[in-house]
């Protein structure tokens, strides 16, 4: 069933000559029990775009990706792919997870060929071809646990590519890699995306990764899009370039500004007193709302010294606020 629809879609795509899927998200809502994660999110993504979604953990960016992948059901709103309901085209959507999620009991090539049906020799040829694209053709018959973290992610990328996805979802796939492997993988993903021209949505917590790869950077805060920045740097982008650095710092600054102007449980103030004790110390902050005291570990105060008069942002969790009615 699945194979048939995706085969059909491939033909359709070939006719339309747009390999990438267009995404239309309208008033998307997701609740987990009492907790609402997405509050009516609207988003349109053009076919073939590479969009990066940044945001702090728990902001709903992974939830959005899982909804796009069809792994979870939305509580409200809709997701349209090329104007069709998501279910019809789900065979054209592939996901790369943060952990590679390779089957340890299948060899590299068997992992890549997972879910494919057809003549064995043809499948092997196709799998070898995509493995060659990610530079791992020589490791085809090894067990995944013989590979490094970066190589495993490359196998996972090959496994996604062999299905010729029209939408590739990447859920922090490089989060666990060391800096050098990370940049290598970013280059590989960019190159493969340019070659195959699918639509890609990358969730990351690394702003520089977003700047390096994306056509468009979205910031999700509290289940809403609070920043939508188009990146117009020429590719391939170099991490050291001045424009790159300027954009990265601008996005970072916007990210922080947005956090600062978001008045929920964040109070700007000045340090007026520091009482140091052996284990716990108290920092007094004068804010517009009055004096706020923060108890911190003396050790962490020693690691990150504060000066009197320094401007700080006091934040606290909403579930820690106690309310009392005033008489």
């Amino acid at each position, binding site marked *: 069933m699945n194979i048939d629809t995706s085969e059909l879609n491939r033909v359709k795509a070939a006719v339309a000559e747009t390999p990438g899927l267009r995404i239309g998200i309208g008033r998307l809502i997701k609740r987990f029990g009492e907790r609402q994660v997405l509050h009516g999110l609207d988003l349109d993504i053009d076919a073939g775009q590479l969009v990066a979604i940044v945001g702090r953990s728990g902001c709903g960016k992974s939830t959005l990706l899982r909804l796009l992948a069809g792994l979870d059901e939305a509580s409200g709103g809709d997701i349209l792919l090329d104007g069709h309901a998501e279910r019809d085209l789900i*065979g054209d959507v592939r996901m790369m997870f943060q952990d590679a999620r390779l089957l340890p009991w299948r060899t590299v090539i068997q992992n890549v060929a997972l879910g494919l049906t057809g003549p064995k020799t043809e499948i092997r040829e196709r799998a070898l071809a995509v493995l060659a694209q990610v530079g791992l053709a020589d490791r085809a018959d090894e067990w995944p646990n*013989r590979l490094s973290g970066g190589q495993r992610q490359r196998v996972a990328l090959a496994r996604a590519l062999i299905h010729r996805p029209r939408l590739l979802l990447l859920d922090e796939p490089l989060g666990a890699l060391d800096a050098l492997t990370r940049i290598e993988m970013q280059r590989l993903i960019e190159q493969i995306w340019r070659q195959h021209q699918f639509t890609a949505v990358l969730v990351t917590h690394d702003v520089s990764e977003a700047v390096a790869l994306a056509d468009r950077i979205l910031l999700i805060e509290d289940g809403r899009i609070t920043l939508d920045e188009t990146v117009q740097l020429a590719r391939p982008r170099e991490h050291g370039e001045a424009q790159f650095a300027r954009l990265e710092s601008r996005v970072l600054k916007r990210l922080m500004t947005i956090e600062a102007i978001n008045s929920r449980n964040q109070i700007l103030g000045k340090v007026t007193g520091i009482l140091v004790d052996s284990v716990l110390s108290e920092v007094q902050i004068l804010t517009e709302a009055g004096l706020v005291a923060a108890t911190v570990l003396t050790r962490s105060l020693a690691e990150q010294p504060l000066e009197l008069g320094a401007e700080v942002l006091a934040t606290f969790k909403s579930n820690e606020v106690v309310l009392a009615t005033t008489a």
Partner: protein
Amino acid sequence: MSTRNGFLQRAWNGLLPWLVPIGILLVWEASARFGWLSVRILPEPVAVVKAGVTLAASGELWQHVKVSALRATTGFAIGGGLGLLLGLLTGSFRKLEIALDTTLQMIRNIPPLALIPLVILWFGIDETAKLFLIAFGVFFAVYVNTFHGIRSVDPALIEMGKSYGLSGWPLYREVILPGALSSILVGVRYALGFMWVILIVAETISAQAGIGYMTMNAREFLQTDVVLLGILLYAVLGKLADVAARLLERRWLKWNTAYGNGI
């Protein structure tokens, strides 16, 4: 020079585990020879070997071994097969678990040997009774480990499989069964050990053939050497079953560095 040393080292490592058994055999043989041990209590090793050779030559030994082995494997196939099937079902379907697991866990706590009087009443003392006891004893080891194995398959891998279009039998074949296999094989190894224990008891109750019959018969005629031969045969058969299970582990779990040697 170094390869020669390596060879000696390997030979020594291979020999080491056998030094103690060989030593015990030598001491045993010597004490029997010098009359410190009565032949009625413990015959000398050479006598056991002789008894084995005589019985093997007459073909009687093979007959008994064949009957016992067939009995054990049939009982194991029935009990283990049912355990595997039910474990797979209750592991995969929450509704079946709710319906069956409590009952099975209750029955699991009955020692199989406590059923002997009832089994004799039900089936008499012929072959069915023995097969039932073995199957019953083996069932739970396989069932519990299969159930546990299915349940402990990494949900992230199952989710990945589903998102790559697998469902139904392909998902089972590619993800769930291989993921549960190491646990299932633990159950199989445990069940194989238990299989021999129950076989011995079942055969000593009543039998017309088999190793147990042979030893009980020998006891009546005070042939301690044959009794000892029977005990040794159980040990050898038990070891063989264990080796077979290990080979399966090596073959099926070769992707796991804890078994096999990778590639």
